[in-house]
């Protein structure tokens, strides 16, 4: 646990009265969280960040928390060390492709959507674990990968030079999403917009997702992964993974920023038009075995989530 959030956690744990509320699902709904679906954050969630103003021009609004950027800057050099602090992300990566494939093949469009020449936008790409792998797939036309952390991005660029297969397919940009030009027509959007293990590092997730949404092509998918905010996820990601096992670098997670799958669904399907076909897959990291899909675990820990932008009706 990083010192900066410890007192808050203890307060929240006291509030939970864990012994009397055994169900983790009920727990999560019984304490106040930052208001995810609103455009302004509640003061208690993150007093240190200035509230965004969704009406202000891009030049002043930011989805980025400076603390987060400096945290990941410090991790940059070890990003591609398979035994290093990012090992657990490396191990998760194949599941992301399985999940995307299962989402894309689950729709019954007639005619089926094209499965070749896919365009990806990877937001918060980090060192490029997912971005590189997406670019290597023969079904991929291009990958644009962005991250606000300059150090992490230069590691990503240097690493991509090691593989001639990536040269013409992968483009890195050191920018937050709010500074990336929105596609001029919906059809110029991306088939897959991915946001893996990022949203828990963003101070105002609803605003952040509002900025990501226009990049998805009609019929395309927004795919993300994150961690549910439950007492179990606190124990596993903060206490066990960061403090005890040290398989995740200390200070990576601020548990208050976690978002539950139900909240995701509410955001996309009730508060926003244009979205359909929500998909979810809960995954559990088993030391020694790696990541495993565990149905139902999305309620308590790491999960993948995807929604499809309503296709254009021709």
């Amino acid at each position, binding site marked *: 646990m990083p010192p900066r959030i410890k007192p808050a956690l203890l307060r929240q744990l006291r509030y939970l009265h864990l012994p009397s509320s055994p169900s983790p699902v009920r727990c999560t709904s019984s304490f106040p969280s930052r208001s995810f679906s609103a455009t302004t954050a509640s003061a208690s969630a993150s007093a240190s960040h200035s509230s965004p103003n969704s009406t202000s021009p891009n030049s002043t609004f930011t989805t980025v928390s400076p603390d987060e950027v400096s945290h990941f800057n410090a991790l940059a050099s070890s990003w591609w060390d398979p035994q290093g602090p990012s090992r657990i992300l490396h191990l998760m990566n194949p599941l992301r492709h399985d999940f995307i494939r299962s989402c894309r093949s689950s729709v019954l469009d007639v005619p089926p959507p094209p499965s070749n020449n896919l365009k990806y936008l990877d937001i918060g790409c980090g060192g490029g674990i997912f971005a590189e792998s997406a670019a290597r*797939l023969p079904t991929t036309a291009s990958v644009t990968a962005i991250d606000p952390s300059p150090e992490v991005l230069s590691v990503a660029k240097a690493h991509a030079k090691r593989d001639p297969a990536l*040269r013409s397919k992968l483009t890195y940009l050191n920018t937050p999403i709010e500074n990336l030009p929105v596609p001029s027509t919906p059809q110029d959007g991306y088939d897959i917009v991915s946001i893996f293990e990022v949203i828990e590092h963003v101070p105002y997730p609803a605003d952040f997702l509002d900025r990501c949404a226009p990049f998805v092509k009609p019929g395309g998918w927004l795919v993300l992964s994150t961690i549910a905010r439950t007492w179990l996820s606190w124990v596993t990601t903060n206490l066990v993974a960061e403090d005890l096992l040290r398989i995740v670098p200390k200070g990576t997670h601020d548990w208050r920023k976690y978002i539950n799958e139900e909240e995701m669904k509410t955001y996309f399907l009730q508060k926003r038009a244009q979205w359909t076909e929500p998909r979810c897959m809960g995954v559990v990291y088993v030391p020694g075995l790696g990541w495993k899909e565990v149905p139902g675990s999305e309620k308590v820990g790491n999960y993948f989530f995807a929604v499809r932008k309503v296709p254009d009706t021709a």
Partner: protein
Amino acid sequence: MGSIVLSGRQLQRPLSSLCRSCSRRLLPRLSRSYAAVSSQQPDIYDVVCVGGGPAGLSLLTALRSNPTTAGLRVALVEAQDLEKVRSWKLPPDRFSNRCSSLTPASAQFLDNVGAWAHLHRDRVQPYHEMQVWDGVTDARIEFEWTPPAAGKTIAYMTENLNLTSGLLRRIDELGGVTVFNSARVAGISFGEETEDLDLREWPVVHLASGQRLAARLLVGADGANSPVRAFAGIESRGWDYERHGVVATLELEGEGWGGDAMKIAYQRFLPTGPVAMLPLPGNLSTLVWSTTPANAALLKSLSPKDFVALVNAAFRLRPVDLEYMHTISSGQEEELAWRLQHTQFNRRAIPQTVVGVQDGTIASFPLKMRHADTYIGERVALVGDAAHSIHPLAGQGLNQGQGDVESLARTIEFSVSHGQDLGTRMSLESYNSERYGPNHVLLGVCDKLHKIYSAGSGPLVPLRSLGLSAINALGPVKSFFMEQAAGNGIKLF
């Protein structure tokens, strides 16, 4: 030497794993006419396999026959002339002396990759029963199958050249492998960094011709003295057995006690090492006799009739008598005839009498046990004898290599379908963890068996007859051994 392009097909096939611009730049150099042009940049491949023995050829076949991995750019570097393998042909009644017993698991794998059909099937001999006994105490492990499994194939005796020439035909049919034939690896180094490419972690194979091949993954299928293993700095540990394996193609008095439908493999543990006779089609069998280098030299020096007599003696006489027969430089035939009158044995429990040996088939190989510390490094993987050498007493060396290749091909397929860089150590981890343990167990078991049975007297001898009888008494243990021999038990090989 030259770069032989097996088919023009790779010029059109999608090069999924290499970007379009760089493959365009690289493609012209694939053809023979460009081979002599020296270049600054090495040719870039996804997989460069050094060694075109059973392991290397199976790997390339597996990669080319799988649609997921068929888009990879693959190259084979082989020091020997593969033309001789490709055009290998013997009359139906002549058999090569280098034979291996392929387990059903290996045969299944070869079938899955489309190679089994390319073997000369009339030269492949399945066998259905094993007779194994201790030459000192005469204790037997009864290996016949119990009724439910009766008639089940334990393994297929196959000439190594039948296998490798079949694999080559399958590779020719699939196309798309750039073959550097009769090409020795002169050296291996790391690549360089240029403005837009950083190949400092990519192995670059230097051929004697001056050509250089950069490898996303360099596979060492280059046998026991693997140059790839040396490049990767991977230690291989073990010991020499001070034994040689003497091989020969034998002619027997008949098709075997069970006839053509029930072929039997025999192995007798002698104090000098096990002697095995494994069935080939008709009245032929192949010999694998592990013995001291001095005995091996004697065997190779004998006239055919004395050689035949010594082989018959090896399955019949008591160890002391057999030892005496090794002390005379000729006259084994007469010696045997005289000694057999005074020896008791059950004719039908041992192989039929050998009546001849095929010309030029008597040869010997030093035996050793080696195991590499790991099968993987960054952009390096070892398969087959490059990773391990085993005592031939269980006939498992080649099968272990097939198991390696099957696992490595599956690992590569997983990487390709998930966009992983197939050469990184991280991507290769599952190959190492799948294969290392099972191979290690098998190497250990065969090593222990050799050691226990090479004592002619002393405390181990009564213990081991107890051991063999105990194995017989313990049904589950015995079926474990049998299942392992057939390669369809818990997946050990």
